[in-house]
């Protein structure tokens, strides 16, 4: 098949795919605050926002973000210089090769009249770029292995992107090193470009190339000062315009030394054709897959960084926030930095639900928006409501995604669609109703279900038998203090919860909002004159209720829940 056709097809697929994905930003309804606006309305809003950013007073910030974050990636370097250098290597190596090597017909050849890929500095630069990429790929692969959290969240997509890059670059290097030693290549080039009069001249040129450039031959080479001098003259006449020493090829030349003994055998196996096709086809594949793999971050992430420079999501037009969120989903490079700084990532060790981790929650969110149901939604809800909204993921995200805003929006939607937090569903019934329900679910079954071991404070009378109901815990409780009417807002006060324990009415406390609204500040426990572990007991009751009373998702609409109660 015609290679041009293949190349243009790949380009076409890549372009159409990119447009499709960008178009999706305007169609994904992620937490639409206002009613879904018309597409044209969204477009004009976007155009206005872009206009304001580019022609407004914030343009200096945009410029700064473009130079410092997109081009120099200084924010990544500042977070972790090793990761920064790795990514800079990948980034600049990749762009150099795409622009000045893959597209050299349109760039290098036009800009520099004497351009030839086999001349320096091009050969050197190409090899340098390849080395940067290979080192970057190796570092990235190692990084994913070294950190346990990154290892646990490794995806095929991460491997695929790295593998594609590695295959393209390595096949290129292999091809070049083969060409350095290939006798057939030499013959073809001589036949095409050199006016050689006889075999002696051919052999002289070949001898010169073998001596100077390390080329391989089919026959044993001639030697002698005269022959080499003749060869040098011929080289100067016919070859030097496009060729100088391949020794500058940092990677290919040493590799070609290894391949030299095999040169003839590889020749016979059509190795160069094979390699060339591999190099070309995988490059085209990469181009075609750009919108559908992690490579798409090349488009989305710079935009995301620029958008962040324009202000937080809260500053944006309400109508544009969903667009921004959808773009954020695409800008994620799955680098895992958010997970490393997430305040609740440690919970993942106890509850192996990946949706607790920001990077994985992002994926779960994507699947949810694409229509996932059932257990996937339940685990997304669980992960979402474990988040404490500390904001560190947003602060650290090297792609500039306003993750905090995404979580806020998705939490709201989860509640609306019947996947509320535990604090939400516990309000669907009164404590007495929960007690009735708990009576049908013995606590032993919860234990048998592999629940994490608890302290078992509430079951042990020694824990609370010294309680004298003095109300100190209630008096110091900030949750009680903030309520105008604790009986209405909390059902029971802390000291009343302790009394339920004493009266063996533990089930009545499971659904009490005091238990669920406890801020675990431990004031009660620290002030208790009798050393009752009040806060620990409340915490344990909450865990027990969570295990025993889990509802069937999805719950009805919020209005329904209220009316049921």
């Amino acid at each position: 098949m015609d290679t041009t056709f293949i190349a243009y097809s790949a380009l076409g697929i890549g372009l159409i795919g990119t447009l499709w994905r960008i178009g999706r930003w305007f169609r994904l309804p992620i937490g639409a605050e206002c009613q879904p606006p018309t597409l044209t309305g969204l477009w004009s809003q976007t155009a206005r926002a872009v206009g304001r950013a580019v022609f407004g007073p914030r343009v200096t910030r945009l410029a700064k973000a473009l130079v410092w974050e997109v081009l120099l990636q200084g924010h990544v370097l500042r977070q972790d210089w090793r990761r920064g250098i790795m990514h800079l290597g990948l980034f600049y190596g990749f762009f150099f090769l795409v622009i000045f090597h893959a597209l050299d017909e349109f760039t290098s050849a036009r800009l520099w009249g004497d351009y030839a890929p086999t001349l320096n500095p091009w050969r050197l630069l190409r090899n340098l770029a390849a080395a940067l990429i290979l080192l970057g790929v190796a570092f990235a692969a190692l990084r994913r292995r070294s950190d346990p959290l990154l290892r646990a969240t490794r995806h095929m997509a991460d491997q695929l992107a790295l593998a594609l890059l590695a295959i393209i670059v390595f096949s290129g290097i292999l091809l070049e090193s083969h060409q350095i030693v290939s006798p057939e290549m030499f013959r073809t080039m001589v036949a095409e470009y050199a006016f050689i009069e006889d075999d002696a001249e051919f052999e002289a040129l070949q001898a010169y190339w073998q001596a100077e450039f390390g080329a391989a031959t089919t026959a044993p080479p001639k030697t002698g000062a005269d022959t080499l001098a003749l060869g040098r003259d011929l080289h100067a006449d016919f070859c030097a315009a496009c060729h100088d020493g391949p020794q500058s090829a940092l990677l290919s030349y040493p590799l070609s030394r290894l391949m030299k003994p095999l040169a003839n055998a590889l020749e016979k196996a059509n190795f160069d054709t094979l390699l060339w096709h591999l190099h070309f086809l995988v490059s085209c594949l990469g181009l075609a897959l750009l919108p559908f793999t992690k490579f798409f971050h090349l488009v989305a992430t710079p935009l995301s960084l620029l958008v962040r420079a324009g202000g937080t999501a809260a500053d944006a037009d309400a109508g544009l926030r969903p667009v921004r969120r959808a773009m954020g989903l695409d800008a994620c490079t799955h680098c895992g930095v958010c997970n490393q700084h997430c305040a609740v990532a440690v919970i993942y060790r106890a509850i192996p639900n990946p949706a607790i981790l920001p990077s994985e929650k992002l994926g779960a969110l994507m699947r949810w928006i694409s229509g996932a149901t059932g257990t996937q939604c339940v685990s997304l809800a669980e992960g979402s409501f474990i988040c404490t909204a500390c904001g560190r993921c947003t602060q650290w995200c090297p792609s500039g995604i306003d993750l905090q805003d995404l979580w806020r929006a998705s939490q709201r939607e989860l509640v609306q669609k019947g996947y509320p937090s535990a604090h939400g569903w516990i309000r669907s019934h009164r404590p007495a109703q929960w007690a009735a329900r708990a009576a049908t679910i013995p606590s032993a079954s919860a234990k048998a279900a592999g629940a994490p071991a608890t302290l078992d404070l509430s079951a042990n009378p020694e824990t609370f038998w010294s309680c004298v109901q003095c109300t100190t815990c209630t008096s110091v409780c900030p949750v009680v203090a903030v309520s105008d009417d604790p009986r209405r807002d909390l059902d029971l006060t802390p000291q009343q919860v302790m009394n339920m324990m004493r009266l063996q009415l533990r089930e009545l406390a499971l659904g009490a909002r005091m238990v669920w609204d406890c801020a675990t500040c431990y004031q009660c426990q620290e002030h208790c004159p009798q050393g009752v572990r009040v806060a620990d007991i409340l915490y344990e009751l909450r865990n027990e209720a969570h295990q025993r009373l889990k509802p069937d998702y999805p719950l009805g609409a919020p209005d329904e829940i209220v009316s049921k109660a």
Partner: protein
Amino acid sequence: MSKHRDITCQLLVIGAGMAGMAASLFAARRGIDTVQVGLGGTIPFASGLLDLLGVYPVPAGQILTDPWEGMARLRRVSPAHPYTRIGNQDMQAAWRQCLGFLAEAGQPYVSQAERNMQVITPVGTVKTTYAVPHTMAAADDALVRRPPCLLVDFAGLKGFSARQIAATLGASWPDLRAVRLAVPRMQGELQPERLGRFLENGEHCRQIAATIHRRLDGARAVGLPAVVGVHRTRPNFEAMQQILGVPLFEIPTLLPSVPGLRLRETFEQHLPRLGVRAWYQHRVTAVEARRANEFRIGIGRDADGFRARTQAVILATGRFFGKGLHADRTAIRETLFDLPVDQPPQRDEWHHKDLLHPAGHAINRAGLAVDDCFRPVDVNGRRVYARLFAAGSILAHQDWVREKSGSGLAIGSAYAAVRACERLLG
């Protein structure tokens, strides 16, 4: 393992009740390098009134007008009573220093040198005490003159009924009226502390005073629960009094009480200012007596422990509620040093058969027997450690609840112990 480095000091006071606080105060005033450790949960379980001696002799239940006269009789009859080991001069000096400190810290107390004072209780009885918070001083006068008086309570405040007080006292108090006020934005059950924190806000106090003022109807005195602020009591109380234009007094509430809370927070805030290195909310985890003049005391919460090396210790750990003493099926023990506890030989002698017997129970008089320097002694009267002192309710041969002598015991014995300690430290 340890967050804090080990420390050294001259004196370690164990306990953050009235006796511990007073001991730290006296030691700091004498320039002794003092560390104090204690959980500090029990002062709010006192009313905030400071007793010296209200009843003597106990079996007769005779209420004392002059505590000093009662004390003189007590000393003649009970040589083992802690009061017998504290001279009048020391006792007076102790009170002066203690009340001076409280006044300086913004929580002044009022006392009459030669006689006890009286306050109204939340059930309408009259209680005899020695020093009262300035907010209760007007009750003493009102009880004498019995002018037309309005008693206020708050909807939801448990265990406090102005109507009940009026009904009880009304027989001997011609114009005693009761009114119940709703506290804005506070529904349901109310604890004194919550109200106290609410009335920390001067604006809330002025609003309530204005409401009461509209209901005065000729009353010449106003009583209300003791909840007027915890820290800003004085300005808030004075503002209310100004709006009302008649004498205003607080009436003690159920426990934990706000006046108790004021006491605790005053001590906790101001003792460190005097140089006491305080570890409140910490407990003693281990004790070790080394040689004659060194104790090593482990201090900590759960895991973050450290050690204090001290030359002397004052034990003010209280009785059973304070956890200085522990009673099991066979005996009463001192919980930290396992000191000999003076107690009835048999458990069935701990209590009188009649629960409400006016003479009280033998267990109430159990505790640490001490020498004249307030150092615990064993059954043979030999001191256990040369530099270990005891103060407060943990002492034997007293029944502070029935004698109404809790604060006097704490303050007086702390003073005597600190003085002896200073002498021994040289």
